[in-house]
C-alpha cells in the first residue's frame, strides 16, 4: 500500500473523529437534571431549574472530598483535595463532557430524566 493511501485512511479517521467530537460536545444536555456518581452508583441528583439559592454540596469519598457548587445556571466542582484538581479545572458542566475526578471515582453529568419531578403515576392504564 502506498504512503499516500495511508495518509488518506488516517485523514479520514481524523475527520470522523473531529466530527464526533463536535457532535458529542455540542449536545448541551437534555433537561436540567444533574447526577453525581460515585464508582458508577448514583449518589445525588438535582434538578437545577428548581434551585433558587446557590448552594454547595460536599462529596465525601474514602479517597477524599469534592465540593460541588450548584446554581440554577449550572454546576461545577469548586474545590477538591485530589492531586491534580482536574475536576476543578473542568469548569462548568457542559453538554457531553462530564466532570470527572478519577482518584475519587466521581463523575458529574447530566441525567436524562423526563418529568417535572414525577417518578410514577398511579391509577393510569387498564387494570
Amino acid at each position, binding site marked *: *500500500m502506498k504512503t499516500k*493511501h495511508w495518509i488518506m*485512511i488516517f485523514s*479520514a*479517521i481524523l475527520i*470522523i*473523529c473531529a466530527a*464526533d467530537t463536535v*457532535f*458529542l460536545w455540542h449536545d448541551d444536555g437534555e433537561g436540567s437534571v444533574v447526577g453525581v456518581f460515585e*464508582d*458508577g*452508583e*448514583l*449518589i*445525588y*441528583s*438535582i434538578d437545577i431549574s428548581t434551585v433558587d439559592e446557590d448552594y454547595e454540596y460536599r462529596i465525601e469519598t474514602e479517597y477524599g472530598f469534592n465540593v460541588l457548587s450548584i446554581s440554577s445556571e449550572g454546576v461545577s466542582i469548586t474545590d477538591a483535595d485530589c492531586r491534580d484538581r482536574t475536576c476543578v479545572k473542568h469548569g462548568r458542566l457542559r453538554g*457531553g463532557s462530564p466532570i470527572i475526578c478519577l482518584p475519587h471515582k466521581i463523575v458529574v453529568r447530566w*441525567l*436524562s430524566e423526563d418529568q417535572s*419531578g*414525577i*417518578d*410514577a*403515576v*398511579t*391509577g*393510569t*392504564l*387498564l*387494570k
Partner: protein
Amino acid sequence: MYNYLKGENQLKRVVVFLIIISNILLLFGCGAGTSGYSTEFFSMDTVITVSAYGKKADEALSAAEKESNRLNDLLSVNGPESEINRLNADGSAVLSEESINIINTAVDLYYMTDGAFDITIYPIVDLWGFYTGEHYVPKDSELSELLKNTGCEKLVIEGSVVSFELPDMAIDLGGIAKGYASDKVAETVRSCGVKSAIMSFGGNVYAVGGRPDGSRWRVAIQDPADNSAYAGILELYDQVAITSGGYQRFFEQDGVRYHHIIDPDTGRPADNGVTSVTIVCDSGILADGLSTALFVMGYDKAVEFWREHSDMFDAVIINDRSEIFVTEGIKDIFSSDSAFEVISR
C-alpha cells in the same frame, strides 16, 4: 485502493475498518449511556416499567422481567400453563403453593371486607365482557342466577387442593395478581442488592426505598375526572400505591357508562359516588385487593373500615364531586394543588 485484499494489506484493512466501525458505534451508543437503569415490557395484560439504580441495576431489571413473566404464566386466567384455568375448567385442582397462598389471602380479604372483595365473581365479570371485549349489559335474572354461585365460603381449600362447592363456579385472581406480582418483583429486585427502584405494574406503583439521593419517590395520583391531570402527589419510601377507579376500564351503551369494578352484592358496577380509591401500604397484594374493596364499599363504609384497620394501610378517596379525602396516616406525604380533607382515626 485496489489491491486492498492482498494478504498483508488485509490485516491493516481490518484494523482500520474496526477503528472506523467502533467509532460509528460510539456515536450511537453514547446517547443510550444513561438508560441502563430502566426497562419497559408487556406482561400480565398490561405494561410494566421498572427503573432501578445502583450497581446491580441491570441484573435487577432482567430478573424483574423474568419474574413478571413467570407470574404471568402462572396466574393468568387464559394461559395454557395457567393453574387457574385448569381449576375453573375442572372445578377442582391441585395448585402450587404460591397459588394457594394467593387464594388464601384473597379469601382473608373477602371476610375482612365483608365480601366487598370477591374473586369468585369471575363468571359475572366475564358475562359483562370486560375480558373478552364483547361488552354486554346483563339482565337482572341472569345476574341473580350467577350470584348464587359466588362467595368465597363456597371455596374449599384442603392442603394443595382447591375445589368449588357448586358447579359452574370460577375464580379470577386479576384483582390481586398485579399487587402480588409487585411484591414478588420487588423482592427480586431487592435481593439483587438494589436499594432504590420504582416500578409500575399497569399503574400499580411500587417504590423500593427512595430515590438514589435519599429523597422519597414522587408518585402522582391520576385525577379521575381528567386523565391528563393529577389529583395529588404521594411521596413514597418502601411503599406501594395502588389505585382503583371506574374511569380505568369501562364501556358505554345507550348513553350509560358501565365500568369494570363489579359490586359482588349486585353483580353490577359499583355505583356509590366514589371515583377513585388509592391505597398506600407496604404490601402490594393487600393494596390491590383493598383498593377494589374500598371502591365497592363507598365512602362511609370505606372510612369505617379504615378506622378499624388504620395500622395496616392508608388511603386517598376521591368522589364524583372531585372532593379529595386523605387518611391521617399519610397526610404528611400527600400534597395537592386542590384542597383536601383529612380523615382522622
